[in-house]
């Protein structure tokens, strides 16, 4: 009879210390000699992970009220602008925020400094109201002084991503790294067969409410990420061959560690945040076992020319080729380099595996599954606005 396990059955095994947990790389190896049915029978959970720069990240912070109180209508954290439109003392500090005078230190650095327990200078201004009379405050905050600090990333963990090259005669500095002229290098960003959404391409187990590893602690998938797109072309293995689905994730920043949350500055681009995410996939049946068995050579993505407006597609390659150090695009051999950390992703997958084995991390059934028919809109320009 075909295997069908429930989340509760797997959690029972986790509690008893009997669950069999493998990383996505380990199960891909196992699949070379085992059928999906055998894998579904033997394996309970597969851990996936990624550690890449994710610009759509940020943190919600509540500072607490000063005496006399202030309604903060302009906020700076170590000089970096934070959002002022959230009540009196709540803010959202976006990872890519920065003071143009000091572009190399941005929101991501503030977030990392907060995580590291460092003191941050908070300066805020208000117009002064009857209930919030104060007009200015300059003080110091840190992890211990604030009420809450919550990581809330609207778009992380892209399911696949294009390979970047640059066909122009000028160096291009991008979030995909420094792209040398005349297609002399190519950069790629996902962790391939270890990447979360590539192991569950139809998101049969990942949805709203999925408990995950986030930045060194337990967090949650709270929504489909922004630009969530399920209508990208797929290859014969069901893998979308470009950027498609994404996740919105949330977790307690106070419990996170800068080992898994790292601020970054890209030359002539700006600030971003490397985020460590690990997602356990319960092997409920042979179908899911087949999905988590995906190997690098089966995961393809599109090569795009970042030097040209609209980043036109130039070809398609797979992750085994990308990892070999060289790909061929339009008859030209191009050296490849990763821009996300596979060694960190492996570490996260292993930590997650160990904490499931130790019974410290249980899998969760999504409260609601993601939409299955979304596509992307681009921004239309209307002359003169609404005039």
């Amino acid at each position, binding site marked *: 009879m075909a295997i069908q396990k429930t989340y509760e059955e797997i959690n029972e095994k986790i509690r008893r210390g009997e669950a069999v947990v493998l990383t996505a790389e380990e199960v891909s190896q196992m699949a070379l000699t085992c059928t999906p049915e055998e894998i579904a029978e033997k394996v309970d959970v597969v851990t996936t992970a990624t550690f890449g720069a994710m610009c759509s990240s940020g943190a919600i912070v509540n500072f607490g009220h000063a005496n006399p109180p202030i309604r903060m209508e302009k906020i700076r954290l170590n000089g970096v602008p934070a959002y002022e439109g959230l009540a009196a003392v709540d803010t959202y500090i976006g990872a890519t925020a920065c003071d143009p005078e000091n572009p190399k230190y941005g929101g991501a650095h503030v977030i990392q400094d907060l995580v590291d327990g460092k003191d941050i200078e908070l300066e805020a201004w208000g117009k002064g109201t009857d209930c919030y009379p104060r007009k200015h405050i300059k003080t110091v905050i840190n992890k211990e002084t604030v009420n809450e600090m919550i990581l809330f990333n609207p778009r992380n963990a892209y399911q696949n991503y294009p390979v970047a090259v640059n066909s122009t005669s000028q160096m291009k500095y991008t979030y995909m*790294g*420094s792209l040398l002229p005349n297609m002399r*290098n190519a950069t790629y960003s996902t962790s391939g067969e270890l990447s979360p959404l590539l192991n569950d391409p139809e998101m049969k187990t990942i949805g709203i409410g999925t408990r995950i590893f986030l930045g060194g602690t337990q967090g949650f998938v709270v929504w489909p990420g922004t630009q969530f797109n399920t209508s990208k072309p797929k290859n014969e293995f069901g893998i979308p061959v470009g950027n498609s689905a994404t996740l919105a994730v949330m977790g307690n920043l106070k419990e996170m560690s800068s080992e898994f949350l790292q601020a970054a500055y890209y*030359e002539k681009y700006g600030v971003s945040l490397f985020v460590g995410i690990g997602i356990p996939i319960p092997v409920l049946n042979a179908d899911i076992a087949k999905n988590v068995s995906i190997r690098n050579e089966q995961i393809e993505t599109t090569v795009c020319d970042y030097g040209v407006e609209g980043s036109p597609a130039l070809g398609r390659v797979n992750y085994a080729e990308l990892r070999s150090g060289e790909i061929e695009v339009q008859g030209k051999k191009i050296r490849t*380099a*990763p*821009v*996300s950390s596979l*060694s*960190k992703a492996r570490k996260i997958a292993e930590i997650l595996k160990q904490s499931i084995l130790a019974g410290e991390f249980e899998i969760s059934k999504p409260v609601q599954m993601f939409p299955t028919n979304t596509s992307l809109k681009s921004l239309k320009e209307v002359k003169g606005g609404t005039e």
Partner: protein
Amino acid sequence: MQKKRYVLKFPPQSGDQPFSYHLVKDFDIRINILRAEVWPGKTGSLVLELEGTTTNLKNGIAYLQENQVSCEPLNKKITWDNARCISCGNCTAVCFAGALQMDPEKWELQFDPEKCIVCELCVPACPLNLFKIDFRE
């Protein structure tokens, strides 16, 4: 025998002269070109590793200087703060000398200073700013 690295700067009129030929033939110096930026009719620069006896190296360099080619020892090196490295790989994208490479098993960054030609491209390429140019000898 000695092996040393030099930065050569050429004036515009010298771009076509076969200096390397003379260094090899007349001074018995072995040349390893680490980096070349020479365009005929324009100024150019070369980073070379020269190997020869002390006397031959001295004479070879004197010969270059007589021909208006400046020849300074390469006294810069790149330092890497490996404790903070996250092995993202961004720097390997620009290192054509092969000094920065990902270990194909562990996917951790490997830096081989011997191969570094101090092109400095990795300095802006690292999103954590972990490379510094060290000017000491």
